[in-house]
């Protein structure tokens, strides 16, 4: 998926990934790629400004720890972040449900399929 399109939803996706457990930047990117089945490809560096922005807004908190011999900044979702995630996820479901209703049922012969990395546009 185009990274420009993804950027508008990055905060929601990052909070969702971290709702499954704390993690450092590389873990967050890896989980995001795995959970999207490889569909969400964006320059990995762009998650850091987003993580820092979410921390500044008190939706995430971070602490430094040594993991696998390397010093890492571990992010976790705060209670305020969990509340924001629930609200934004609900808004997204409403929005995507409305879009799906507008688009309607696929025409005969057209198959909806999830967008995968490397799939033709």
């Amino acid at each position: 998926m185009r990274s420009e399109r993804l950027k508008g939803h990055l905060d929601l996706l990052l909070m969702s990934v971290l709702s499954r457990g704390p993690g450092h930047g590389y873990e967050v990117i890896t989980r995001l790629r795995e959970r999207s089945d490889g569909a969400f490809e964006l320059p990995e560096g762009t998650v850091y400004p987003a993580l820092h922005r979410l921390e500044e807004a008190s939706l995430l908190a971070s602490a430094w720890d040594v993991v696998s011999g390397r010093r890492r900044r571990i992010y976790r979702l705060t209670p305020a972040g969990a509340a924001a995630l629930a609200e934004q996820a609900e808004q997204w479901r409403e929005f995507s449900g409305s879009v799906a209703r507008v688009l309607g049922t696929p025409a005969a012969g057209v198959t909806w399929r999830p967008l995968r990395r490397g799939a033709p546009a």
Partner: protein
Amino acid sequence: MTRHAADAPGDAIEDYLDRLLVTLSGSPRQVRHTLAEVEAHLRDAVAEGMAAGLTEPDAQAQAVRRMGPVTGVAGPRTGLARPSLALARRLMLTAALIGAAGFVAIGGAGLVARPLLAAKGDAFLTAPWPQASYTRADCARWLAGTPGTHSCVAAMLADHAGDFLLEATAAGLLGLLGLAGYFALRRRWRDRATLTALPAGTAEALGAALAAVAAVACFGTAFDTEMTQRGVGAGEPWSLGVAAAVAAAVFAVALRRTLRRTRPG
């Protein structure tokens, strides 16, 4: 001279981190933390690439490519659009200190002016307005405010001298309130990031320089008034000049103490 191992050419990770270092904005701590995070990320990605069978240079190239341009890691150029919170706080403290000290100095000028007024009279403190610039109504108002005075000019001078002393007192009180606010903010913002956002002694140096310039300007005006108007109205710039000179001296002493306290070793 020997070359440090990290300076070896061809290390794509080190090159990337160098470019990121000069691109990042924010406090020194934010920069260090982001660099450490990104380096750990890149080393993980290299290890993953090598585990998948890539050579180290190829794994490094892939890690850097996947990380994207350094501007993406740095985010929007907040350093230009919005100074760091620590710097904004430190600038606010500096402005509060200098502004409050300026108002206190004006209050001090009022104190200096009182004995001058007692010794040399209203005409020394303030100069009369040109005759065509005021009306009979102005005269009547000044005379009403100065019982026992029958001359319009004498009443005007007494009124203006009173105004100067009143305004100086108000400015002094405002300055004291400002100083109280400054000390309250300084107690609240005593984190290291705020304290080190500007070089030590910046506020004192700036305050001393501004006060010294003000003192020179006031003394120059007072001296010129003495020469051209035989001292009529010279008291106001003299008293302001003395107060500014005292403020400059106080800032200079504070600067000296700050520099001694922060001198390395």
